[in-house]
Every structure is written in structure tokens, then in C-alpha cells.
């Protein structure tokens, strides 16, 4: 209640150090306006800036889902696969060729971990799994723009897709390309109840990342069709495409595309403020709802779909499952930054060589993800997956030494999840996990804003990532401990029952013996006499 009053008189809108203003239409708490310097877009003028490279000889496709648990492969070694054939559930082969090995290889991971992967040798034929699709590379994509224009044929395809949506989505292996990698089919099919708002997330807010913007510029028609397919599939009452206001070219091309197919989707211009692209700030911005961190937006009638996933949906409607994505190559030390369409499983080193960006010397650190939410790679021989939206090349950087926290509360001003980072930092340093949980540490979306405004240059995001993974680890250990105790008690009861059963058996045997003794007295004597008499006869 008090929160409403204080926000009414403008107290919650911080006039703190991060100079930002209340954003239209609803806005969200915190966030930072950063200079976006999207190097991958070049000089920001020409329309089609996506380079396409042909896939390498060997592709390694990790067999892990978005929660990083490994999934069972559906192919054996030395099996021939076609492009688009399912390697595991929701994972398809990006090329046609032979499965060379299924082994542990290094994947894109902050800890440089290894995970089970399928290694495919590319036969460079690209034979598709379903025969009627002909794969068009980017160049053909552009010429085809006019062909796709005629609305009727596209609507027919969409109607066909709506009719068989479950099977087509299953084959399409669609995965969210915004960075989380949540299976899109699961998200779409589970929204059967009335869906209020479908948000197409085109707010690429992190500096350097420009893959969505490049896609919107070059193939806005396909995206428009994807959007109408989505809104028809989910029967959403309102469909909103949210784009940041600095992406002028993308806004124009999207507006013309939506007009040409006269789609019902709204184009909403939201102010450029990091992290406007994250799910919870985006929903606050568009619909004003604040969704607590542990609840799914679907239960509140909202779905967020990334614009690149929408494009991939349209490709899937045309019979091409999702097997590639646009990756931005940026960063201060990248010789020629660009956007490149890469098939999953292509090693980062190969992409850099093909685009002429091979790192000059080893002091340059190659980084997966943006400057705020990404991490440095231990080696560049790791495959690109649906979750890699950007590769940066930056000079080696020694972070300034952290000074003690002076509780200036600037980090709480900019935290989009409305948390208290300085208090969470204090409890993490004192290793008080229950207090961290009390302050909802797991609501932290690890956006990095608090790190940027901290005057004592404390590594807050790293501390919270450590604290969250540590807390989850301890919870998992606690769960294992409880199971261990149950098994221990079962074993004890089992042993006790066995012991009682044994005692019982002994008692019964004793009982039987005692009851037999009396009647056998005569038989024993008779037997004795017989023996004695026999002995007498032998003696005479």
C-alpha cells in the first residue's frame, strides 16, 4: 500500500545518479541508458548486412536442453543424417552427412565444461529431410522477397500451419533465440487459455548485440508473416512488437512490412534503456504488469517471443526447421565487425576465420554474449548454439580492485528487479544464505546494471551469480540428504524386521521341540530296547 503512495508522489522513480526519466508508456524501475555502439551494423545505413558463410567440415552439436541437462541422442555413430533430421528431441541436424562420433566436447560455458555432443561430418550436399523444401541461402532470400509478397499464398501456408501446428512445431525444433533457449513449441502450445498479450521482443537493449536489428532490416516481411502466424495460433487479443526508439531503420522496415500484409499487430516504440529487452522489464514496459520472478508470464496472460524466433517460425512454416541463427561479431578489437548467419555446431574459431576476424594475438579475449551478460571463453574451439547471440573481441582488461561498499544505494536505484544489491552483497559476504533467500536473491536477472554504477567497483553480478549457484547447490545437497535419511530409515526398519522375523522363527522352533518331547517317551524307550536286544544277539 505504502509502495503505491510513494510511487504516486514519484518517490519510487529514482532521481538518482543514473540520469534517466520515467519512460512511456508504463516504464520499469531502474535500468541504465548506455551508449549502444552497435559495431556489427557497420555505418548504420545499408539494409541487408547479414553475411552468410558455408558450414565447416565438422559440426559438433551439444545434446543439452535450456536447463543444461543432457538429452538422449536419437542417432547412432556412422549413421547418415539429412539436413533437418532430428538428432535428439528439439535438436535437428544443421547439415546432411555422417554422424562421426557422440562424445564429450567442450561447449560455450563460463567454466569451459564438456558436455555430450554429436559430431557430424558434412557431405556439403545439404539434402533436406522433407523433399519439397528448397533451402534458399541469404542471397536468394532477398530476391524472393517479391515472390513472398503475394499475401494469399502466405495466408494459405499459415492456415495449413495452424491446422497441423503440433506436428510442424515438433519437427521445427524451435528454441527461443533471445538468450534463454526455452523451447518455443512448449511455450506456444501451453497457452491454450485466453491469452491477453503476445509481445514480439525486438528490444535488443544490450550494447554491441545487433542480430535482431539486422534481421528486421533485411527480412521484415518474413517476420511480419511469422507474427500473423503466431497471433492466429495463440488467438491473442493484442499483439505488440516492441522496438527500441534508436533502431530507426528497423522500425521503418517493420512498419512497411506490417502495413503491406495489413496485420493487426501494434508497433510500440519503447525508450532505449538497458535491460528493456529482459522479460520482466519488457512486460512492465508494454502492459504495466509486474510478474514476480517465480511465476511464468503465461499464467498472467502474456507471452514474449523473440523476433528472430518469429523469423525461424516462418522458415519452419516453409518447411525449414531451425538450424541456424544470426550472430553479431562486435567488440573494440574485432577487425571487421558484422552480422553473420551461422549454423548451429559451427566452431567460433571457424566463424572468426571465415569473416576475416581471426584474433591477432592471444592477449585479445574472445567473449560469448554481450559486454554485460556474457562471459569470456576459455578456448575458441567451441560450437555456436541457439543461445549464442553475440561474439565479442575485447582487449585484455584488468578490472579495478574492489573497494569496500559505502552503502550509497545507487545499485538499488538501477536494479530492474527492485532488489537491494548492497544488502544482498553484505549477506553473501557473511554467507547467510537464508537472509539472501529472504531478500529474493533468485529474482536477480544478472543484468549487470549494479556493477556499472557501483562507485567502489565491486563485482556485484559475479557475487550474485556465485551466491545463486551456491544456494541452488546447497538446496540440491539438502534434497539428497533428505533422501539419504529416508533410505537410511528404510534400511534400519528392514534390518529390524529381518531380526524380529529371525527371533520369531527361533521361538517357533523352540516351541515345536518342547511340544514334541512328551509323546515320544515310549518310542525312544522302545528303540533303546531294540538296540540293546540286537547287541545281545550279536554277543552270543
Amino acid at each position, binding site marked *: 500500500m505504502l509502495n503505491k503512495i510513494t510511487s504516486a508522489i514519484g518517490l519510487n522513480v529514482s532521481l538518482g545518479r543514473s540520469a534517466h526519466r520515467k519512460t512511456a508508456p508504463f516504464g520499469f524501475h531502474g535500468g541504465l541508458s548506455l551508449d549502444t555502439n552497435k559495431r556489427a551494423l557497420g555505418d548504420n545505413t545499408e539494409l541487408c548486412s547479414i553475411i552468410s558463410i558455408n558450414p565447416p567440415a565438422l559440426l559438433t552439436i551439444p545434446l543439452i536442453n535450456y536447463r543444461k541437462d543432457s538429452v538422449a541422442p536419437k542417432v547412432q555413430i556412422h549413421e547418415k543424417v539429412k539436413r533437418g533430421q532430428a538428432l535428439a528431441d528439439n535438436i535437428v541436424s544443421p547439415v546432411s552427412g555422417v554422424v562421426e562420433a557422440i562424445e564429450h566436447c567442450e561447449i560455450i560455458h563460463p567454466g569451459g565444461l564438456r558436455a555430450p555432443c554429436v559430431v557430424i561430418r558434412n557431405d556439403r550436399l545439404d539434402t533436406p529431410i522433407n523433399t519439397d523444401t528448397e533451402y534458399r541461402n541469404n542471397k536468394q532470400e532477398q530476391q524472393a522477397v517479391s515472390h513472398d509478397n503475394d499475401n494469399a499464398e502466405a495466408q494459405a501456408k499459415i492456415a495449413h500451419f495452424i491446422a497441423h501446428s503440433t506436428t510442424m512445431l515438433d519437427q521445427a525444433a524451435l528454441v527461443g533465440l533471445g538468450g534463454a533457449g526455452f523451447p518455443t513449441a512448449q511455450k506456444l502450445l501451453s497457452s491454450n487459455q485466453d491469452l491477453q498479450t503476445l509481445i514480439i521482443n525486438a528490444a535488443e537493449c544490450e550494447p554491441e548485440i545487433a542480430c535482431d536489428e539486422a534481421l528486421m532490416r533485411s527480412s521484415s516481411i518474413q517476420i511480419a508473416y511469422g507474427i500473423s502466424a503466431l497471433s492466429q495460433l495463440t488467438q491473442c487479443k493484442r499483439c505488440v512488437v516492441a522496438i527500441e526508439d534508436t533502431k530507426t531503420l528497423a522500425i521503418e522496415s517493420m512498419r512497411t512490412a506490417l502495413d503491406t500484409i495489413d496485420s493487426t499487430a501494434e508497433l510500440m516504440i519503447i525508450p532505449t534503456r538497458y535491460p528493456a529487452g529482459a522479460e520482466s522489464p519488457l512486460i512492465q514496459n508494454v502492459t504495466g504488469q509486474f510478474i514476480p520472478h517465480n511465476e511464468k508470464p503465461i499464467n498472467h496472460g502474456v507471452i514474449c517471443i523473440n523476433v528472430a524466433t518469429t523469423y525461424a517460425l516462418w522458415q519452419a512454416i516453409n518447411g525449414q526447421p531451425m538450424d541456424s541463427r544470426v550472430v553479431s561479431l562486435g567488440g573494440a578489437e574485432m577487425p571487421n565487425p558484422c552480422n553473420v548467419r551461422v549454423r548451429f555446431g559451427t566452431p567460433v574459431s571457424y566463424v572468426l576465420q571465415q569473416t576475416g576476424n581471426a584474433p591477432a594475438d592471444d592477449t585479445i579475449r574472445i567473449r560469448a554474449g554481450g559486454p554485460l551478460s556474457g562471459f569470456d571463453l576459455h578456448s575458441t574451439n567451441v560450437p555456436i548454439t541457439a543461445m549464442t547471440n553475440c561474439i565479442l573481441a575485447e582487449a585484455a582488461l584488468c578490472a579495478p580492485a574492489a573497494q569496500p561498499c559505502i552503502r550509497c544505494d545507487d545499485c538499488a536505484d538501477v536494479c530492474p528487479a527492485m532488489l537491494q544489491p548492497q544488502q544482498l552483497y553484505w549477506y553473501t559476504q*557473511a554467507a547467510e544464505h537464508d537472509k539472501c533467500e529472504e531478500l529474493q536473491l533468485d529474482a536477480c536477472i544478472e543484468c549487470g546494471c549494479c556493477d556499472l554504477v557501483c562507485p567502489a567497483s565491486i563485482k556485484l553480478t559475479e557475487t550474485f551469480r556465485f551466491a545463486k549457484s551456491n544456494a541452488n547447490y546447497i538446496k540440491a545437497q539438502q534434497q539428497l540428504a533428505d533422501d539419504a535419511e529416508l533410505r537410511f530409515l528404510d534400511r534400519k526398519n528392514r534390518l529390524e524386521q529381518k531380526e524380529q522375523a529371525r527371533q520369531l522363527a527361533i521361538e517357533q522352533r523352540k516351541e515345536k521341540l518342547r511340544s514334541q518331547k512328551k509323546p515320544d517317551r515310549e518310542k525312544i524307550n522302545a528303540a533303546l530296547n531294540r538296540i540293546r536286544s540286537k547287541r545281545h544277539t550279536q554277543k552270543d
Partner: protein
Amino acid sequence: MSEYALIILTTVLVNNFVLTQFLGLCPFMGVSRSLDAAIGMGMATTFVLTLASTLSFVIDHWLLDPFNLRYLRTISFILIIAIVVQFSEIVIRRRSPMLHRVLGLYLPLITTNCAVLGVALLSARQHHSLVEAVLFGFGAACGFTLVLVLFSLLRTRLSGADIPNAFKGNAIGLITAGIMSLAFMGFSGLS
């Protein structure tokens, strides 16, 4: 009416029993480790103190004065406080065993708490009327609880601080209590 408010104000702030008159320091240091222990202790002491100061006034006024047995004051006050504390301990053990275990030794310790005896003796010496004695006891207990709760919250915050090993634990507690009494000196002389 205003001088009743004045009594409460002076006992809580001006000459606060813990920080200005330095009475009742052992539970102050001992129980301030966690907030709910401090609140529990504060409640128990308030209950004991108010009841004890009322009973001691009654005994002093109607029993010791008429037979001018004023020299028996300390003994009878101790007896009354002991009974009230025993009573409250039984109630707490029955009502919430968790709080009883958390307070542990410090609950019976209220009997020997110099603040409790101090209140009874001071109010007797200052010839308070019944209402004044009750308010005096209640004010002293409120002052004790307020400072105890503030001190326990301060100590939970200090538990995360990078305090040199020599000062960890009660040492830093005593220094903080010293600075707290420094702050309460500001109220001295409040007319």
C-alpha cells in the same frame, strides 16, 4: 497528566537504565545476539518489572512503612521479584518452548538483574505514588527493551563486518554500547 509523560520520557531517554545509569548490562550483552531473543527478553523484563515495581510499592507502602521496617526493603523486593520471575518463566516454558530455549539461562537471570531491583529501590526512595511507581517501572522496562532491540539489530549488522579478530564478539559489543551511551549523553540535562 504531563508529569506522568515526563516520568516515562525521563526513564526511557534521559536517564535510560542501561546506557546512562549502566544497570542491567549482563542481559544487555548476553541476549542481544539475535533479534527475536532480544524481543523475547524485552517482553519478559517489561512484564516482570512492571509487576514487581507495583507489588514492591504495595508491600513498601502498606507493610514496611506502617511498621517502620524500612530496613527490610531490599530483602522483600528481592523475594517479590523472584516470585514474579519464577511465574513468568513457567508461563513462557508452557507458552512457547522455543523462546524458552532461546532465552535459556537469561530468563531466571532477570531476578539478579540490577535494573529490576534498582527500579524498585529507586522508586521507593523517591517516594513515588502508586501510579508514578508503575509508570517508573514501565518506563525503565521500555527503555531497556528499546535499547536492547536496537543493540541486537546493530550486532546482527556487525556480524557481517570485517572486525579484527581481537575485537570479535563481546569486545565490539562493548565498544558499540559505549558509543551508544555517548549518543544518549545528548539527552542529559533535558529539563
